[in-house]
């Protein structure tokens, strides 16, 4: 089981990476942590003509606190994020999610940007980015732009990234004293992709919940917001929220679980998370 032959190019700068993407067009893939890409190449699920290694690009592996936002560079490794005091204090949802991602050796290499850019529907971080109302920071041939997480994830492994774009960072709002977060997933073995998972954020003010975002992963083609369940939960109606998942979600069958099992587990997670968010009410 070996990858088909490809060429290798090490990008010296962001501009260099974008130039290389333009030169090699559809045959090129960006190599960040490689923890999904190289597995896919080994299994020959993909056979690019060239890998553009962005690991040497300076400045993409930093975590900064900036005016109400935390900016996490695309090349920040999962293990680096897991040990970051800034993330632990200001982005507790991601801090809760990180230990669920794969295993130590994979977290040492895998990057935050790689996980977001790949947009695996069963992955934790895309759901967290949507739950947090975060943004993707992208540089392309025409310069830099930001895309809201709600508009970034388009479909199965499809994002707002164009063929010559590089995801350089994600930005997420800093948690306040009113912020509440919940994270839970169900998987057969530790570190596996979840059969179904749920990332949530909400605000609590004067004992009232508001701005709830319930974002499921592993249950559709991309991170899925359960908007009707959110509306029910704002009113404190947990059972109604669980029932509303019938409208919100369209679970699929696969080798791990049937759609019906996923639908049931989605309700189990919602009940768990509702209690976690509550602390104050419900």
């Amino acid at each position, binding site marked *: *089981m*070996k*990858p*088909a*032959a*490809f*060429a*290798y*190019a090490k990008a010296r700068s962001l501009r260099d990476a974008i130039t*290389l993407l333009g030169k*090699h067009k559809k045959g090129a893939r960006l*190599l960040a942590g*490689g*923890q999904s890409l*190289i*597995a896919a*190449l*080994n*299994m020959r699920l993909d056979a690019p003509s*060239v*890998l*553009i*290694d962005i*690991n040497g690009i300076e400045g993409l592996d930093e975590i900064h606190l900036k005016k109400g936002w935390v900016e996490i560079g695309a090349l920040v490794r999962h*293990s680096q994020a897991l040990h970051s005091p800034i993330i632990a204090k200001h982005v507790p949802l991601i801090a809760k999610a990180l*230990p669920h991602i*794969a*295993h*130590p*050796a*994979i977290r*040492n*290499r895998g990057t935050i940007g790689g996980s977001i850019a790949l947009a695996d529907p069963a992955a934790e971080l895309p759901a967290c980015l949507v739950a947090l109302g975060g943004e993707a920071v992208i540089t392309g041939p025409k310069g830099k732009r930001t895309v809201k997480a709600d508009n970034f994830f388009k479909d199965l492994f499809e994002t707002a990234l164009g063929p010559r774009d590089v995801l350089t960072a994600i930005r997420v709002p800093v948690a306040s004293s009113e912020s509440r977060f919940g994270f839970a997933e169900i998987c057969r*073995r*530790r*570190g596996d992709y979840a059969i179904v998972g749920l990332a949530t954020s909400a605000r609590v003010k004067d004992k009232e919940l508001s701005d709830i975002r319930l974002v499921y992963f592993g249950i559709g083609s991309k991170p899925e917001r359960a908007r009707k369940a959110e509306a029910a939960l704002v009113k404190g109606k947990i059972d109604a929220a669980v029932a509303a998942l019938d409208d919100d979600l369209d679970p699929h069958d696969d080798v791990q679980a049937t759609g019906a099992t996923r639908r049931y587990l989605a309700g189990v997670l919602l009940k768990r998370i509702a209690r976690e968010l509550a602390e104050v009410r419900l």
Partner: protein
Amino acid sequence: MSELSCAIMITVNGEEMRATVEARKTLVDFLREDLGLTGSHIGCEHGICGACTVRVDGTIVRGCLMLAVQCDGARVDTIEGVSDTGEIGDLQEAFQKRNALQCGYCTPGMLLTVQELLAKGGVPSREAIREHISGNYCRCTGYHAIVDAVESVAHARAGGKS
């Protein structure tokens, strides 16, 4: 600018060397086929089993999910290296003493993985040990003996009884 084969400079188990590698060659294939360091095993080749675990610049990685060409300028330690230096002598002895291996296929990866945990110092809980080795499959032991061995070495290194 982009090449099917690349020249790299790499330090393996303390020895600096130059090599020309195919871009598609994984680190573990390079170690086994080009350098004859067959202590790093190949199991699943897609990052699930942990048999190919090696250290790159001091942290453990999957040897099957990293390309040799990416290790240009890097320092790589394999089971041969950490055995020769004696770094994990106590762990190897504990694994033997407690029957923490049978067929031994997972053992090199398992040893490098637990060494990373123990190098942080302190005595991790059994739960933390299990969590840390969750990405290393062993189909013989049922893990219990491995956790016993790791725990005993942690106590011994911390100055207690094993």
